[in-house]
């Protein structure tokens, strides 16, 4: 497999097409947060909305435009974190970041299993210029969760 094929694995191509969670809708959940992120080098952007139910990331919806790596990465993370706890999503994020920094090699431990489809992005790590693309959605997710948590706290005190 060439580096190019390793980067654009079928799993990634599929996510870039099917785009899980695409489409911003109203989320009827106790705590909702939104984040807009732009990759200034290429103008790619995403608006991502998260709905929390207690400590669970119940719903992730997003709208974005960008390269296949950025779009597929958002789709894959949506699948990975929905229905999981904030703590778990943070662990997956840490694993994904480690993968991006691993110069095209799998991590070689149980984090590879944790990453699921996101493990297919391993080839991106060989191209420093593209790591930002793969991380764009994760930046939006973490920021949106922080906003949702703040909104949730506010809802409790005022509600």
């Amino acid at each position: 497999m060439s580096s190019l094929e390793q980067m654009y694995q079928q799993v990634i191509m599929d996510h870039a097409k099917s785009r899980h969670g695409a489409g911003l809708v109203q989320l009827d959940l106790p705590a909702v947060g939104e984040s807009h992120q732009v990759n200034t080098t290429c103008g790619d952007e995403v608006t991502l909305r998260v709905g929390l139910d207690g400590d669970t990331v119940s719903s992730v919806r997003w709208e974005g435009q960008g390269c296949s790596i950025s779009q597929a990465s958002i789709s894959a993370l949506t699948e990975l974190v929905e229905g999981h706890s904030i703590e778990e999503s943070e662990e997956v994020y840490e694993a994904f970041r480690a993968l991006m920094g691993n110069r095209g090699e799998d991590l070689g431990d149980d984090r590879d299993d944790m990453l699921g489809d996101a493990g297919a992005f391993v080839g991106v790590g060989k191209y420093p210029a593209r790591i930002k693309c793969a991380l764009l959605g994760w930046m939006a997710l973490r920021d949106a969760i922080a906003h949702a948590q703040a909104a949730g706290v506010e809802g409790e005190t005022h509600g």
Partner: protein
Amino acid sequence: MLPDLRDDFPLLARSVRNGKSLAYLDSGATAQRPHAVLNAMDEFDRLHNGAVARGAHLLAEEATEAFEGARGSVARLVNAASPEEIVWTSNATAALNLVANGIGNASAGQGGAASSLFRVGPGDSIVVTQAEHHANLIPWQQLAARTGATLRWIEVDDLGRHRLEQLGSVIDETTKVVAFTHASNVTGVVSDVAAFVARAREVGALTVLDACQSVPHIPVDVQALGVDFAAFSGHKMLGPTGIGALWGRKSLLDVLPPSVFGGGAIMTVTLEETTWHPAPTRFEAGTQPVTQAVGMGAAAEYLMALGMEDVAEHERRIARIIREGVSEIPGVRLLGPVGDAHDVLGIATVAVDGVHTHDVGQVLDDLGVAVRVGHHCAQPLHKRFGVTGSTRASAHVYTTEEDAERFLAGLASVREFFGVPA
């Protein structure tokens, strides 16, 4: 006709991804450097380095001679009336900012009556165009914000050519500055400078030309063009990074207030006030990038030895191959005039249907073809074309027909690679 010059450029001999030979088509962003430039800088550093215009010893003399000699070379390349009309800057961006900030300072009263011809304020207008690189847009936005003047612009048509019929209405008696590009870094379209200058003169406005993409590729005669200022960068004309130039009419440069202050630029300093040197020294405060200036001078000499007419002809030939070639690839849209247009540089910028520019660039990179992706610091123009980004191939003196063919073959394979239906 130019000979094959690849051997003059050591970097072009290296291999890139997968051991492939390099088809370097990103000269519009930054060009490669010939031995002549690398050697000139190396020799300066090894043998002649000294403090320019400051020391009393032999090395200081030699360094000064090299520094000023380089200025002379750059002056000849653009046919400046004298070397004093060339101001060293760190790049074209800094050159454009030097003019905009100087005008801003004059507007705040700096330079007194002598500099009053530069004053702009509320009720005045500054005119740019939709085709500008951000480097020739943002300084003018800032100047407008700082002085209360209004920023206006000339639009471009669907092919990226300026809508010259707007010159008469957009540029009017309120206009103090007209800043426009000589050639677009996206479409390669060369502007009708004479039309801009004629209208600007009618209303007494200053003209500032972004010559960043023209000076490296076509004959540029600043006196014949009739503009007041022109900015360009060393690294796009086969020279090093860290150096650029502002050309300006001596009579204007001598009264344009400086905006960087320090040693070397001044005539006399008391604790209360300072009088500045005439140009170019007044703008060159602090220790200058002398090695880089020497490199830029060597690049100017290299280009002049090739002959700018021949350089332009060579790049036109490459442009014809690329522009006609991309027009034939399904799902690929050329931004700018299609086919063999007479007023277009060796640049072809495309949008590929259904494939993001980053993905296009990645596939080409895998084939050893280096192109630029993104918005190329020209977001308003991309917006005009209805796209957020594009993929650009740009030529220089060393670009071969084979480079062009490799780009076309790669581009033709992109949509299939990403499974976009034909």
